[in-house]
């Protein structure tokens, strides 16, 4: 039984909860997997660091929260400071190189990607950053097929958004794929 335990973390406006939902929804709707998604709510969410948890598995999932993520994505310094110590030994830590200075030493593979920079350079609109993150994640780790993500995006967004999303997904996927093990 494969089981992915992923935390997306960053700040409120970055759309990381959406990214988490898209990922989990794709697993369930298009890959016949089980997935559970949850997130932090409330004052914690309005101010400081957001966090969205995703567990994906080919068998039933009982616990809905991630305690030790195998994959941790940090899109702000604050998120990195708060969550990086949670990571499972030998896990994967993805950070945006613009926002995060990786200071802590963690027993995990740390990958720093210039996601924000690239999105701004090539698309010029930060709203698709979250899709780019998603692209990088699946480029690096698989989890679900890129085409499945595309299906979900097509279902959830109006056609006008498709081009931007697709570009962001592709950019992210490529950057991630380079770091795939």
């Amino acid at each position: 039984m494969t089981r992915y335990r992923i935390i997306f973390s960053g700040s409120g406006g970055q759309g990381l909860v959406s990214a988490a939902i898209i990922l989990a929804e794709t697993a369930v709707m298009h890959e016949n997997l089980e997935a559970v998604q949850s997130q932090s709510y409330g004052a914690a969410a309005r101010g400081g660091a957001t966090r969205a948890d995703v567990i994906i598995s080919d068998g039933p999932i009982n616990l809905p929260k991630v305690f030790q993520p195998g994959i941790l994505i940090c899109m702000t310094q604050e998120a990195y400071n708060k969550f990086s110590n949670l990571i499972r030994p030998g896990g994967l830590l993805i950070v945006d190189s613009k926002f995060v200075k990786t200071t802590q030493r963690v027993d995990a593979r740390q990958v720093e990607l210039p996601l924000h920079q690239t999105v701004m350079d090539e698309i010029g609109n930060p709203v698709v950053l979250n899709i780019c993150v998603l692209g990088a994640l699946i480029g690096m780790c698989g989890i679900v097929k890129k085409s499945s993500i595309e299906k979900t995006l097509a279902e959830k967004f109006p056609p006008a958004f498709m081009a931007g999303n697709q570009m962001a997904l592709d950019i992210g996927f490529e950057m991630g794929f380079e770091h795939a093990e």
Partner: protein
Amino acid sequence: MGKNIAFVQGNEACALGAMYAGLDFYAGYPITPSTEIAETLAVKLPAAGKKFIQMEDEISSMCAIIGASLTGNKVMTATSGPGFSLMQEALGYAVMTEIPCVVVNVQRGGPSTGNPTHVSQGDVNQARWGTHGDHSIVALTASNHQDVFRMTVEAFNIAETYRTPVILLFDETVGHMREKLVIPKEGSIPLVQRLRTSVKEGVNYHPYLPREDGRLPMSDFGGAHRYNVTGLYHDMWGFPTDKPEVVQELLKHLIDKIENNAHKITFHRSYYLEDARTVLISYGSAARSALSAVEQLRNRGQRIGLLELNTIWPFPAQLVRESTRGVNLVGVVEMNVGQLTQMVKLAVGKPKKVSLINRVDCQMITDKDIKKVLRVLQGRGV
């Protein structure tokens, strides 16, 4: 994969279950962590030609659904702790007047405003005793979206069958998390439609004279029969009385119609109970962790099982008694100070066999937490 699969929050699953059950009218007031139920229904109900209204508060929401139910609608409201406290007076009115309605309480940390965005199961006893006066009540719960959906449908069925408010006692974790929901085909969960009187216009209709089987056929407001509804003790026509024999009979009826049918409205799931020497009893999101713990311990050879309750009130004493017969240790896993544990103790009869395994810091109890306490209870230290 067809359209019958959805990836949704528990709150959405509840809203979808209500739509499936034939919800006609929803009134509510937003409150974390139940708001998504209203938000989903604000989209779905008008699109189905049905009614959605956001009221000025929880009190009026509860009152409005009772009013709408009387005109022949299937009705629901949803709230959380503070709002549920405010609904208690009108909830008692629905009990007394026997108006079918469904009240969702997605539990958060209490008391008071407490911890609005975190999980708790602290309202279990309030669901039972929150309104003043003797009475009985039905409360259902669920640990996963499939059951959230199903229990929501059953809540409507029970409300209509027994003419009673039914409480759906979910919790923040289940309400907010997203997971798969397979939406049952139309007809695959039987729906109970309201029993309406067959008494013809002009013939005497007794709105509060129970049939032999205890059921009370209704007549919609606006329909053939004009009668009175009151929260005072009332006679078979629905008119106020304080005659001792009528008072006593009505109270007994209100209680018996629930308690005597407990077996028909007891929903549960059993896991590995057959040969279990240790039985966990749990419900709501806590049951997810309990199941996880049970499966891990089974893998290590322990004879442990789980009884997951979907019906909390009327408390399924018989089921609990039967499921724990001959067992050495009963652990009640809940996220409160042991509210249902007391009922389990009374049901099991040997209070010392029963232990509470809980967490009260508004964090989800984990498999680890449970295993740790079990080790101690089994005398194996920490």
